[in-house]
């Protein structure tokens, strides 16, 4: 098979570029610690409201400077809809859904995760600066989808 010298060069540069990108991703994952959501447990979606910790959703300080947000994403609200934490807190979100698939994106953070009934989504983020972030449901969940939002207030 004849491959033109320009084509060889083009494909080598292109393939090399892809490898560099993959290297950058490996660095982001292993070096910079940007992780994807992993398995964080399952739950009976029909018993969310009676299964700890989701029987009592809310914001808790689990250790000095460390917070846990236990959240239920349901049609069409987040419970709790308002999360207040001091700047510099490391926050772990634990979220599940008792009805359909939802999504949660905390604006201008890397908290961006699907909320699937039967599964628990876990995400960690450190809020450094005082400001307000929108919490948006970003997966279609029915006719009231666009009314489903909340706020993270970093004080």
């Amino acid at each position, binding site marked *: 098979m004849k491959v033109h010298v320009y084509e060889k060069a083009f494909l080598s540069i292109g393939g090399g570029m892809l490898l560099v990108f993959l290297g950058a991703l490996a660095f982001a994952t292993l070096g910079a610690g940007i992780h994807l959501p992993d398995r964080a447990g399952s739950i009976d979606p029909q018993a969310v409201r009676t*299964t700890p910790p989701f029987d009592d959703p809310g914001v808790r300080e689990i250790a000095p400077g460390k917070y846990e947000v236990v959240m239920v994403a349901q049609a069409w609200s987040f419970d709790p809809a308002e999360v207040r934490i001091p700047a510099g807190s490391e926050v772990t979100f634990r979220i599940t859904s008792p009805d359909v698939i939802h999504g949660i994106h905390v604006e201008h953070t890397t908290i961006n995760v699907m909320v699937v009934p039967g599964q628990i989504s876990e995400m960690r983020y450190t809020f450094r600066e005082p400001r307000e972030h929108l919490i948006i449901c970003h997966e279609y969940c029915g006719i009231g989808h666009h009314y489903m939002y909340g706020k993270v207030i970093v004080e």
Partner: protein
Amino acid sequence: MKRKVLTGSLLAMGALLVGVSFFAIAQPLTVLPRMALAPGFVLTDQHGERLTNEDLRGKLVVYTLAYTGCGEACAPINRTMAELAARLDEVDTGGAPVRLVTISVDPERDTPAALRSAAEGLGADGQVWRLASGDPAMVRQVVGGGFEVFYEARDDGTIRFDPAFVVVDGWGITRARNRVGLPDVELLLDQLRLLGNEVRASTGVARFAYEAAHLFSCYAY
């Protein structure tokens, strides 16, 4: 020559592919994921003896939370622990000892003396099953910061917390967090059995098979 190298490397790649796909399809063994390093701590047990995470190295440990003044609210947790303690000999852990540790979430009131009387009531021998408490700030770091379980005192003096059973392996790595509702004793025994399989295979060629199981996420649950 060149042809031989090519054929050889193609064959090797083919063998690798077949091997990998066999592993992916058949899943000859399953493991518990290596989730994170378990927290370090220095606590005191019911005999007033020091208990640290380092003492538990090389042992499979099931941690749970409770407190002595809890009464009926903690009874299901304690019953689970007691049943687990009684049935430990059902599991072959490959010679690795199993330890059960109940950490108090009421460290202010749970002195070694309080723990001792509670332990007698529960049948915790202080050898396999130990009750531990310590400096409140330390307990907060271990339970809240390490095991990520929230607890707080209610106005009536009881403590609010969610049940959690955390399984840690001999290297001090968290392998299972059972924290949604109360786990079945069978489930905990099964988790210990899976860790035991790995302990037994920790020498020799089988080790690589288990490493492969981790690499391909052949997780039991």
